[in-house]
């Protein structure tokens, strides 16, 4: 599966008013090309912090589905996010890691996920649902389950998505000024600006 296919599927199989936090690098840049929305927060730097931002949003906007689209490099950089998410257990949070086992944005250098299974980390940290998928259809199925569970009985969900390295899909750095991204995201949340 290509990164761009996964991102397209993620938009398709999440709530229409879901709030997204995209990790820096090609993930946010491809998401920006695929579907730019007010409820998209693109991390421009601060590598590793996508799930922390998502946790802060999810804890305080419990009525919305909060979707963190992370990369393996990002997730490994702050693996402590897994512990915080598991501890806090926001039922409305879906944490997706697009895992190409490399730092693809910077030229494909190997990442530690070649040997580390991040779904095991999520499991150990107490995520309520943990899936590991290899195809677009499987990804869609898991995301539909996350929608059902949104705001109900279960805690946070984790989806590890096996993707290919891909430097050819169209990717553009979001052109919005950071404070514009802040304000329009808050508008999407329904928080006062």
């Amino acid at each position, binding site marked *: 599966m290509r990164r761009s296919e996964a991102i397209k599927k993620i938009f398709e199989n999440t709530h229409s008013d879901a709030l997204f936090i995209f990790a820096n690098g090609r993930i946010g840049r491809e998401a920006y090309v695929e579907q730019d929305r007010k409820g998209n927060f693109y991390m421009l730097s601060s590598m590793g912090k996508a799930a922390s931002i998502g*946790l802060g*949003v999810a*804890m305080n906007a419990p009525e919305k589905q909060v979707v963190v689209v992370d990369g393996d490099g990002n997730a490994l950089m702050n693996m402590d996010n897994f512990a915080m998410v598991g501890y806090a257990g926001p039922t409305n949070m879906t944490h997706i890691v697009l895992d190409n086992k490399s730092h693809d944005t910077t030229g494909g250098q190997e990442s530690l996920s070649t040997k580390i299974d991040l779904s095991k980390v999520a499991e150990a940290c107490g995520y309520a649902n943990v899936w590991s998928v290899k195809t677009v259809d499987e990804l869609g199925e898991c995301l539909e389950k996350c929608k059902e569970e949104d705001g109900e009985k279960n805690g946070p969900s984790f989806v590890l998505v096996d993707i290919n390295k891909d430097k050819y899909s169209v990717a553009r750095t979001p052109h919005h000024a*950071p404070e514009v991204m*802040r304000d329009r995201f808050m508008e999407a949340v329904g928080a006062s600006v």
Partner: protein
Amino acid sequence: MLLTSKEFLDELEYHGVDFFCGVPDLIVGKLVDLVEERGLAYMPATCEDVAVGVGVGAYLAGKKPCVFMQNSGFGNASDAFVTLAKLYRIPMVFVISVPDMPVSAGKEEITNYAQHLDWKRLILPNLDALEMPYTLVEKETYKEEMKKAMEMCEETKHPVALIIRKGYMD
């Protein structure tokens, strides 16, 4: 007379702070206890950098966050401060404690501990270098100083730091 953690938290609440995340130390320990006693929204953080991430997320969802840490923790949090809180212009409060900074002249200086010596000397220049506005919290002036800091935070949409030195708050 020392400022009490209760007085300090009352003042934060007065200014609308309603979400807390951070890593405690001996100086802000009582403050964290009070946050929990009062049932305020609180997320214990594993590290100070992710605390900033959580604080930024809380702000985006309509909260007025406070992240707390020791000065060494600000070292951990520096990039998140610059490339999240500062870059996206998030008006949030950093409470930074400084262990073993000498209390004001005339009072007996508390023993220096080797692990605190460098950060004690480096924290304020570090905040200056990263363009973090800060104020030193003291019993005599805290209300006025915090009012100024919180107003600046809102007006400039930029984080501010409240510095609590050892021996200044109980």
